[in-house]
């Protein structure tokens, strides 16, 4: 046995499971119990592109300080998968614990001197207690959850409440699950000293926060925003976004009298069709959206160019995964920055939003629909797999019941009658945004042909170079207007002395803030900025100008965000220092620190 320092509410536990064995719900209940003990935690599901049989991991980080990013190193591994045993043993930090099924003896080669082993004969207990093979499999999960709860000092009452809530709709399952939990609890109590030196204590640190994933948050945001049409094509990791929209719409958007739906969801034949439907529905005055991931963005590109050029509001959620090509479909990355910012041929630019938390997903999802109609252009909400699919501790969702949807510049029949001459692409207000009409508004006024071909201000086809240029300049003016509508950057640690800055976006927020704290402990103070949108606002330009150099932290190989900054703001590329992580796992504070520290010490 190795010496283990006492760690209260500060550890990482990793469950090594076999995909498709029901472990996911058991692991989620474990994590939720920690949250309900008032202790901040974050959970990451590291899963394969597979339905059944391949290794899958679930990682829970517990942090009293509230750090919600992934952390390097694992303190406890609960290994339920012989396939990954060697790797799992190797992953435990010295002094950590390795919890395993001791029905069979652990082979010598898996014994390390510097970690502690806790064997629980899980299969043996299951064979004794259950006859049905499926039950043996499912309840084995609950047995290890019970055992770990005891080892880690999880309040059993809290755990039992979580189980009761989980099976609210199938109450018959509550008792057997609690029975299985108790099997694990009893075994530990009879055979081991508990709790471990690494353990939990109740706190009151989560307030009224919620635990939810970003995809669900976006789906709910779309409902509150009044989205009525969702067209999509299944693709990991974005599928659960439309699933969530469907789930909540079927509760909140059914006409009680007729039973009919105040929304439509169509599973398209491919991503081209999905975005086509969304553009058609938005053109015809409904709020419509689709969600996809990198390969879908590639397919949607032609249509995105149409929506940009013909000026049709469109909302698109891109839950980024590891590319290029099929890449690692179940791993995270922020690698569609350039393909989204400039999606489609010709001169195109798209408004991007970068949420960092589920609360922001909810807000940005709702705001995206207003922004799309206000700006009459596609708005792409850029999540990543980590934000979209993993549960995050988040502020609760808020909504103003008096909020009115901003439908932008739409003319009704009376306004058309009052207007001298309607021109769909006239820049009446000199902000690059023209007035539009929706089909069916007026019998003789306001009709026009929407087209991807060049046209004049009255929507008539033209190949006149000057008309084309006038139109492109109008779109540039609109881009400037967009800067007033997108959320501005957020700043952290504004008063530094050494002229070093750091910028990041999306899920990099969590490890970046932790890395900044770690630097502070070493007496290094860095200004930091989180960018929430593209186009880049003046504040972003100023922040870069005010610093000698700025670390740009992002999760892709080619520093795409940095390229976008260089291209759009005409910054000297030498000022922007790449800090990258692109192995498909969420970036950690250690990873940032390892790259940043030597550069600071050597003055780059």
């Amino acid at each position: 046995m190795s010496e283990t320092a006492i760690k209260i509410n500060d550890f990482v536990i990793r469950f090594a499971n076999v995909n498709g064995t029901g472990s996911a719900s058991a692991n989620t209940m474990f994590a939720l119990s920690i949250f309900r003990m008032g202790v901040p935690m974050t959970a990451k599901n590291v899963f394969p592109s597979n339905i059944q049989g391949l290794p899958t991991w679930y990682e829970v980080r517990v942090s009293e300080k509230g750090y919600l990013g992934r952390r390097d190193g694992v303190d406890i591994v609960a290994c339920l998968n012989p396939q990954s045993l060697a790797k799992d043993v190797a992953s435990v930090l010295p002094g950590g614990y390795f919890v395993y099924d001791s029905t069979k003896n652990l082979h010598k080669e898996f014994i390390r001197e510097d970690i502690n082993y806790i064997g629980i004969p899980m299969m043996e207990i299951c064979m004794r207690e259950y006859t049905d093979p499926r039950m043996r499999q499912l309840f084995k999960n609950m047995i290890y959850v019970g055992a770990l709860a005891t080892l880690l000092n999880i309040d059993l009452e809290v755990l039992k409440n979580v189980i009761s809530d989980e099976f609210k709709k199938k109450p018959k399952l509550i008792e057997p699950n609690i029975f299985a939990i108790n099997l694990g609890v009893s075994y530990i109590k009879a055979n081991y000293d508990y709790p471990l030196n690494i353990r939990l204590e109740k706190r009151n640190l989560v307030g009224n926060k919620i635990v939810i994933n970003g995809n669900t948050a976006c789906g709910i945001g779309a409902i509150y925003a009044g989205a009525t049409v969702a067209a999509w094509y299944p693709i990991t990791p974005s599928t659960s976004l439309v699933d969530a929209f469907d789930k909540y719409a079927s509760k909140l958007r059914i006409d009680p009298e007729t039973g009919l739906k105040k929304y439509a969801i169509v599973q398209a034949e491919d991503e081209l069709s999905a975005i086509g439907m969304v553009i058609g529905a938005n053109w015809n005055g409904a709020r419509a959206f689709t969600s996809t991931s990198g390969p879908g963005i590639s397919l949607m590109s032609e249509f995105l160019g149409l929506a940009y050029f013909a000026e049709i509001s469109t909302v698109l959620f891109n839950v980024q995964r590891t590319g290029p090509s099929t890449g690692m479909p179940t791993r995270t990355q922020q690698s569609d920055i350039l393909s989204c910012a400039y999606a489609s041929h010709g001169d195109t630019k798209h408004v991007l939003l970068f949420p960092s938390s589920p609360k922001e997903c909810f807000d940005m999802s709702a705001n995206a629909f207003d922004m799309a109609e206000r700006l009459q252009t596609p708005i792409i909400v850029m999540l990543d797999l980590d934000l979209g699919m993993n549960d995050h501790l988040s502020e609760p969702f808020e909504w103003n019941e008096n909020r009115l949807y901003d439908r932008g510049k739409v003319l009704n029949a009376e306004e058309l009658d009052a207007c001298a001459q309607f021109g769909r692409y006239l820049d009446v207000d000199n902000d690059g945004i023209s007035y539009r009409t929706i089909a069916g508004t007026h019998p003789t006024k306001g009709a026009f042909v929407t087209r991807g071909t060049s046209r004049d201000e009255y929507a008539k086809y033209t190949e006149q170079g000057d008309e084309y240029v006038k139109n492109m300049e109008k779109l540039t003016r609109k881009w400037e207007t967009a800067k007033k509508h997108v959320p501005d950057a957020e700043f952290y640690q504004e008063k530094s002395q050494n002229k070093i800055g750091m910028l990041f976006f999306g899920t990099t927020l969590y490890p970046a803030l932790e890395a900044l704290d770690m630097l502070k402990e070493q007496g290094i103070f860095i200004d930091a900025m989180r960018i929430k949108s593209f186009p880049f606002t003046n504040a972003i330009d100023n922040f870069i100008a005010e610093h000698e150099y700025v670390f740009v932290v992002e999760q892709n190989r080619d520093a795409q965000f940095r390229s976008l900054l260089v291209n759009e703001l005409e910054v000297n590329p030498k000022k922007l220092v790449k800090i990258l992580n692109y192995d498909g796992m969420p970036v950690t504070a250690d990873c940032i620190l390892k790259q940043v520290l030597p550069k600071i010490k050597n003055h780059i």
Partner: protein
Amino acid sequence: MSYIKPPFRHPDLPINELGYSKKDYEGAISTLCAGCGHDSISGAIVQACYEMSVEPHRIAKLSGIGCSSKTPAYFLNNSHGFNSVHGRMPSVSTGANLANRDLLYIGVSGDGDSASIGMGQFVHVIRRNLNMTYIVMNNGCYGLTKGQDSATADEGSLSKGGSTNLFQGIDLASLAMELGASFVARSFSGDKDQLIPLLKAAMSHKGFAFLDIISPCVTFNNNLGSTKSYDYVRDHMETLATVDFVPYQNEITLEYKEGQSKSVKLHDGSMLNLHKLNAEWDPTNRKSALEQINEFKDKGEILTGLIYIDQQSTDLHSLIKTSNQPLNSLTEKDLMPSLADLELINDDHR
């Protein structure tokens, strides 16, 4: 060629029941070649809509890319139009229809647009039985890029340059039948007497109405040896029935000999009176209709007219149970759940 359309119309121009003259249904002047079959079809659409007394702004016209897809600019100036991207008119129409189920949707496509680049979308819009009239202006070639064979060109058909098409032609009408389209007709741009009632019937049909209209390309595919030339189509065109469209407002009973006529009631109450030439064929029976289409194909003839209609057809909205009120007319009051609902959602995640 004319470059502008004079706005002047005779003051005594007849008007339809809604008080609109034909002028109210016309479009901009066509930029297609003189004699193009597509312009005749545009004319037929104008005539059909005028005669049916549809309010022009209650129609939406959508298209993809190609000569045919340019035509929505040349008819129905008072209707919103959408000239989208190549082969993707079906998806844009689907979205538009989802947003507002109350408009009449006319989709215009070509043989390149539907049978090649857009084949996937063509197939799936049929499968969803979207409530629309889908017109393929079929000339067997790519006009805008100077006459390459398209996927509907018949095997053995000669091009203007003298080369023989080696590949089997895709018959979109047969395909639509196989895919379960609820209304399938074929016509010829040069036969307005047949085309106009078919257009009216298609627009009155609830669900997906497909019209494959052979529309010769005068510039690139009107030569001897082409199976899509004016002469060839006129010589080989056969029909199973002549069609009268009788709007429900003034339904009349016509006397036809037993066995030679069949009346088909359309969704909106209109009637189609078919003066049948072939007693074997039942246009409301998919199997019978498919047999006929194949029989004519084997004889080297082009079967035109109404081929099949499903009178019980519903549409996508009925299948997915969307509200009767168009989705694009719903407001905050209809769409925004309450704060209490949001609080429940928050609580469910604690």
